[in-house]
């Protein structure tokens, strides 16, 4: 199957572009970003705050099965134009990592299809590299945990 989500990251730049085409009218694609309950569902996080307006703020929090908070992020919305664009910042709490700037563009392709283009700008190339590596590092941790579990069961 063709990879629908594409990441474009050039070596000498400190931004990256994520693109994705959806089998959804642009109105529904945008609604998935606008409605806090729907955001919570697909992002798999609790939405504490989502003020969809210029100078509004947002706050997400994710907990593990035991109720411990594992991820907390927040930011400010700089621009919010329904069915067209969102400009916002993104910052993780309790991590010494510079905020990033995100430009989300929503585009109608046909009545039933749409495209999202998300440009993320990082403070430096090094910041971008660290961010790109996070899911890889998480996979690494999971692998370690899994190995520990297997090892524990062997005892």
């Amino acid at each position: 199957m063709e990879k629908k989500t594409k990441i474009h990251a050039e070596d000498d730049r400190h931004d990256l572009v994520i693109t994705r085409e959806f089998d959804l009218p642009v109105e529904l694609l945008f609604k998935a970003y606008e409605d806090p309950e729907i955001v919570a569902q697909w992002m798999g996080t609790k939405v504490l705050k989502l003020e969809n307006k210029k100078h509004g703020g947002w706050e997400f929090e994710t907990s593990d099965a035991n109720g411990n908070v594992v991820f907390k992020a927040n930011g400010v919305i700089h621009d919010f134009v329904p069915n067209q664009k969102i400009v916002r910042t993104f910052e993780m709490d309790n991590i010494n990592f510079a905020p990033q700037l995100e430009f989300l563009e929503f585009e109608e392709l046909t009545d039933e299809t749409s495209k999202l283009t998300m440009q993320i700008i990082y403070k430096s190339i090094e910041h971008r590299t660290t961010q790109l590596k996070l899911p890889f590092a998480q996979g690494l941790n999971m692998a370690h945990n899994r190995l520990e579990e297997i090892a524990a069961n062997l005892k």
Partner: protein
Amino acid sequence: MTSLYLQSNNCVMEIRRDVFQAIADPTRRAILSLVAIQAMTPGAIAENFNSSRQTISKHIQILSECELLHQTQNGREIYYHLNPEKMKEIDKFIEPFRKMWDDRFNKLESIMKNYKK
């Protein structure tokens, strides 16, 4: 520095973790793009930069340690080549990031199919 890495086939292998540090430096990226076109001697590489030969040697050494470059001997001369296999490994680092977004967007799409505009 090495670390455990679980591949999709569940085979645990050792990899170097500093490949990203290697390519974070602009001079080292420039060296990689030079040798990507053709194999070069350390002297020929250094001619492309204002930095001292020693500095360039140090960069070449780091790239070699990360296996991004490999060398062949031709008479007295050492030639450095790009190791495309290692470059592919860098793509693999990005793949979990892409997969994370792809999973989220797939979920978004399936949820929104239940709604009417």
